[in-house]
């Protein structure tokens, strides 16, 4: 395969991992965001935590694979982005560690203060982690001060522009909605009732954020729409995105939670695709006049490595797909508490 085609292939693949991560860890982060609001009693909180119990760990692997794939295929972009987001990414790390720990340890003691503390920790860690992911996405869309040698020349405040904070808020809204629909799907009785109410509220919150962020994107990052002018076909994604969003309330109204969850998965996939379409062929846009943007062409690994990784991916992907399906099949159905539960 041509070098340039391979670079595009890996841009799409890395994006695929990011989208997969957003969809999969998105619902368990969302469950964390809604943990305190939807679940009230101790029993309910055990249920919400156990609804993601067997799955969150596998979902987080998508982040590891995304990071690995970015490191492997675009090492320059990985190095610049990760060192640039130094403190925010460390916050993400602390958040992810805290989530894992609170899931694992909450039910290990009957002490109500102990459990309450881990509940709050679980909520905070999920929310902060999601917010920072959004901020990072916002920063990449808007552009950052990168010099001609791909080195970040800004400070913490350059990362926390209002637009980035707005995208961060939208990320929280999206995952909150996604997680609530998932909870509705996985629970029964009173807990499900409450999830139903919160499904509408989180959808409203998401819709407001979505509209505001879209307007702001036109204002703040006009370059993000350039690809849509050049390739009008890209508007299909926008159309699909709007359709998927519109389908969420419809499915809720029809009482088909599985359909609603599918629609919210599609919404996230479409948002991730929009993000990719807005960036292409850039990975990190520079705002410095004499700086150099990192593109998929100037920051990738060599032809040989990209080719080799493609072979590995073609062997590995069917395997991963098969056992992901097996695991979701084994754990299908409503969540129940057993002696193996948290």
């Amino acid at each position: 395969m041509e070098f340039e085609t391979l670079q595009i292939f890996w841009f799409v693949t890395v994006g695929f991992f990011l989208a997969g991560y957003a969809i999969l860890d998105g619902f368990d982060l969302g469950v964390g965001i809604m943990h305190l609001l939807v679940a009230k009693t101790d029993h309910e909180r055990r249920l919400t935590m156990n609804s993601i119990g067997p799955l969150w760990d596998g979902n987080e692997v998508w982040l590891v694979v995304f990071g690995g794939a970015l490191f492997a295929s675009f090492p320059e972009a990985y190095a610049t982005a990760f060192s640039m987001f130094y403190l925010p990414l460390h916050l993400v790390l602390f958040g992810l560690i805290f989530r894992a720990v609170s899931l694992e340890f909450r039910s290990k003691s009957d002490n109500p203060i102990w459990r309450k503390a881990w509940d709050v920790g679980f909520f905070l860690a999920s929310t902060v982690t999601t917010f920072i992911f959004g901020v990072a996405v916002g920063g990449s869309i808007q552009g950052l001060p990168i010099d001609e040698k791909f080195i970040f020349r800004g400070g913490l405040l350059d990362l926390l522009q209002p637009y980035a904070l707005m995208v961060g808020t939208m990320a929280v809204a999206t995952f909150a909605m996604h997680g609530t629909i998932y909870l509705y799907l996985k629970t029964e009785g009173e807990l499900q009732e409450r999830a139903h109410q919160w499904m509408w509220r989180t959808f409203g919150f998401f819709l407001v954020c979505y509209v505001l962020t879209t307007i702001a994107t036109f204002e703040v990052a006009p370059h993000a729409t350039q690809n849509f002018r050049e390739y009008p076909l890209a508007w299909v994604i926008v159309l699909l995105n709007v359709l998927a969003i519109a389908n969420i309330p419809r499915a809720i109204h029809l009482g088909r939670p599985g359909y609603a969850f599918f629609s919210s998965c599609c919404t996230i996939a479409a948002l991730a695709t929009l993000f990719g379409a807005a960036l292409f062929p850039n990975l990190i846009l520079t705002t410095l006049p004499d700086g150099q943007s990192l593109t998929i062409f100037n920051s990738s690994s060599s032809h040989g490595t990209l080719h080799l990784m493609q072979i590995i991916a073609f062997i590995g992907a069917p395997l991963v797909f098969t056992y992901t399906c097996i695991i979701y099949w084994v754990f299908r159905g409503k969540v129940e508490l057993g002696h193996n539960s948290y």
Partner: protein
Amino acid sequence: MELDVLLLSRLQFAFTIMFHYIFPPLSIGLGVLLVMMEGMYLKTRDPQYEAMARFWTRVFAVNFAMGVASGIVMEFEFGTNWAAYSRYVGDVFGSALAAEGLFAFFLESGFLAILVFGWDRVGPKMHFFSTLMVSLGSIFSSVWIIIANSWQQTPAGYHIVNGPNGPRAEILDFWAMVFNPSTVDRLSHTLLGAFILGAFFVMSISAYYVIKERHLDFAKRSFKIALALGTASSLLIAISGHSNANMVAENQPAKLAAFEGHFHTGEGASPLYIIGWPDEEAQEVKYGVAIPGMLSFLIHGDFETPVPGLDTIPDEDEPPVFLPFMTYHVMVSLGVFFIALTLLSCFFLWRGTLFEKRWLLWAHVFAVVGPYIANQAGWVSAEVGRQPFIVYGHLRTSDGLSEAVVAEHVLVSIIMFGLIYAMLFVVWVWVLNHKIQHGPEPAVAHAGGAPISGGKDLLIATANLSQPGKGHSLSGIRDEEEDNAQTEEEE
């Protein structure tokens, strides 16, 4: 006070990687034991083996979660703190990392769900298969990460080209990179170290139960399985260690000289220090006890040829000596101790008096600390011995640092890691202790379920096995029964 980004970043990496490395070796070692125990269960259908597999799985799960949580940090840190290094090695590590993610991480974390939560959702054979996959997954991840680390020690299959940001390594020959001169030696050594830890861990808790006369049948059987793995691995690691030393002598003479405190080449055979206190200022090993000529014999097989000392290495390329020497000697001494302890236990097991020797059981209770220290010490000697290079002979550690990171941020993150890891560690020890004090469920057919339904469960499990395809049609019945059992034992 001027804060040194390089020093802080190295401290942070050392701290986070050493904390991380508390967990993966136990996952690897315990994983192998889980496969052995569940395999025995499938073969004999003795419910005691199932009780063993279930109990050790719960311990495994806590340990695994800690490994995942502290492991994501490592992948991030390459980019956050060592951006220049990442730019340099990205092309070479790319394929190894892609393979690790796809083949290993998805495998272990996916099937872990069935291993931990799936006891009552899948049949015994499917569960055994999941255990096997988790164990294989954890071994696979060590394969790829050690290939990458070994490449840093003994680079092969690459060339240096000019990247957009200065020189970088690009891969020429994938298999030469994978099988670089140190991969096989270092991988086998690491895995055996992990097996020893898993074995000593199980022996420690089992010995404690025997001493306290709790869960006796469970404890004795667990101990014996672990002792088998522990003895075999302790003996094999001695061979692997010897092979490693020769490999280091050939590929990284400066590192071997640091391990052995071998400052001066001298004439004739080189001595081997059993203990000592290397003084880098004075360029000599103080208070040392040495076997004359032994180093030459181990490396060259004769008592004549000198082994090159640190005086043959340019000053600016010399590794520190004190830390590699000490950690290396601690590791080797512990290795000898493992062989002695396991062989002694085997002897008493053969005599049939092992579980009456309380002093030996107590020794096993505390001996678990040994493999933890040995695994850490081995890595410290391997990594510090590579200094001042991050990629041996090519990239200095000081040139691998992130360009855009400021010392204050690194300091903040170290403090945060310190706090969160301290908390994590305390909670981990507490939960582990809780699990150990709670002990295994009594061995009934389907441990954990109500004893009344136990018999039925066994029947259903057997039915599932004889008709593997019909497992799902029966699962409904099983779920109902469990519900009844659970309402009784609801916390």
